[in-house]
């Protein structure tokens, strides 16, 4: 017999969290706090989008930056070209989803390490080509700059983080999510019970890349000036990967926990010791991969319920 009220409690705290996030700009005018919260939400969204395929689907995509970058580039061009930002963002998300399907179909057929390397190669091709075709920095026109406000960017980030986390929540419960977990565990065995491995991986890939594009679009709306090639930089793959593993790979709340930890630690470390915060993240990442594959979420669970068996939840187990 499961504890009644356990689910409403979870739903309640999720609702409270969303309400707090939505109210934050009303409650405070502290811009530093708001940009900090924006970054946590942006990283949550990006990390969760990687997690949909990498954590729930078990496919290590090292080319996530490709989709973040496509979404960012398309959104930025349309928006600066005069389109309403919502439309531009939708188009960016759509472009990244389409690219995900086009790129995912052949690359998901690759075996062994070649999926990871192939996706990395695609992202690098896009980065170098973008740098060559669009060498000039993209800056907001003076008029936009004068009208710039953080709040709309912030609300879009809330929207993305909530939407993508909901998608993960759905994956942890739905038929598709159960099928995807089976494929992650053992493709041949999944096929033998009727789960089309390729279709599931491609579906997860499309979701993952579409949401990465959405996050990229918000970044493009947020950032005042950047080089177009920058949105294809490998950091947009590597940061979410580190965040997901720190937080708890294949879990619904891991990306949020990891992103908050990542942003806070980054702030603290860069105040204290300067650049080398990456060293700390690299070492922590290694510790998690080797010794604590559940990440922060698992550690918190163990703290809250010492000795208790974890409830069954699809995707919660880390790929050992």
């Amino acid at each position: 017999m499961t504890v009644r009220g356990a689910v409403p409690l979870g739903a309640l705290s999720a609702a409270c969290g969303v309400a707090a996030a939505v109210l934050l700009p009303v409650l405070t005018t502290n811009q530093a706090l708001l940009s900090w919260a924006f970054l946590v939400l942006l990283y949550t969204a990006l990390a969760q989008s990687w997690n949909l395929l990498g954590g729930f689907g078990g496919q290590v995509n090292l080319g996530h930056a490709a989709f973040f970058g496509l979404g960012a580039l398309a959104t930025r061009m349309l928006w600066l070209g005069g389109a309403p930002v919502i439309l531009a963002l939708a188009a960016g998300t759509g472009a990244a989803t389409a690219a995900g399907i086009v790129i995912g179909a052949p690359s998901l057929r690759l075996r062994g390490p070649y999926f990871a390397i192939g996706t990395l190669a695609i992202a690098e091709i896009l980065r170098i080509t973008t740098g060559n075709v669009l060498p000039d920095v993209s800056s907001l026109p003076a008029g936009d700059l004068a009208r710039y406000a953080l709040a709309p960017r912030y609300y879009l980030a809330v929207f993305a983080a909530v939407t993508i986390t909901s998608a993960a929540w759905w994956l942890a419960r739905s038929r598709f999510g159960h099928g995807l977990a089976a494929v992650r565990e053992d493709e041949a065995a999944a096929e033998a019970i009727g789960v089309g491995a390729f279709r599931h991986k491609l579906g997860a890939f499309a979701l993952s890349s579409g949401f990465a594009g959405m996050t990229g679009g918000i970044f493009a709306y947020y950032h005042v000036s950047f080089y177009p090639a920058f949105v294809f930089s490998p950091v947009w793959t590597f940061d979410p990967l580190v965040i997901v593993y720190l937080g708890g790979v294949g879990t619904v709340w891991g990306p949020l926990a990891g992103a908050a930890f990542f942003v806070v630690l980054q702030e603290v470390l860069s105040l204290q010791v300067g650049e080398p915060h990456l060293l700390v993240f690299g070492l922590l990442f290694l510790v998690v991969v080797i010794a604590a594959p559940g990440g922060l979420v698992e550690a918190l669970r163990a703290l809250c319920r010492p000795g208790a068996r974890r409830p069954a939840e699809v995707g919660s187990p880390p790929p050992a």
Partner: protein
Amino acid sequence: MPGSAAPLLQVAALSKAFGGLLAVDDLSFTIDPGEVLGLLGPNGSGKTTTFGLVAGALRPDRGDILFAGRPVTRWPASRRAAVGIARTFQLIRVFLSLTALENVLVACLYGRGRARSPARARADACALLEQVGMAHKRDARARDLTLGERRRLEIARALATRPRLLLLDEPVAGLTATEVDAAVALFRGIRAEGVAIALVEHNVRAVRALCDRVVVLHAGRKIAQGTPEDVFAHAAVVAAYLGRR
């Protein structure tokens, strides 16, 4: 019973080579609805390969497979599972980091019984775990189960697809005598529900207890078929098992 209706599975002139090695060579046989067919033969004679071909994990080089009158030779494994072909693996393949319940639940959601509600699927999965004697291990991760438990879990998972034909690849290997008896009783029950079974098994006792008919393979070719009694009396079978052929 054999011959009373159109066969459920028809395998015709099936061949499969790995490099230069003919693992299955011009093999034909049928399985009727509700029948239990034993597939015998020495190590490396092509039994597991035959299962792989029927279940769709392997593509044949030549030959045809008809299931319930439909040619499924070119179908992927998942589609065959959806029309009622289920299997277990010789080297057990459960979903290691999922719980026992989740292992069975996902098969309830897919397979032949797919379109039911998640709540219904959960209830079915619990009932199946009960049926194979695994109800108490419902929330245990598959990686924490013993070999015997994993085997039962794999059978429950195959049953969860609502198969019309169940391919069992050495399902009692490594089990104790009491466990073998329990497994035989379980298979009888499955058969009583009208599910046809193809059984690969070296355990002669289990074969005699379960099979209506057996087919004997040697080096990928069919060398004998008939009732268990007839076949075990057949000199060629004994020779094949002793490797003197």
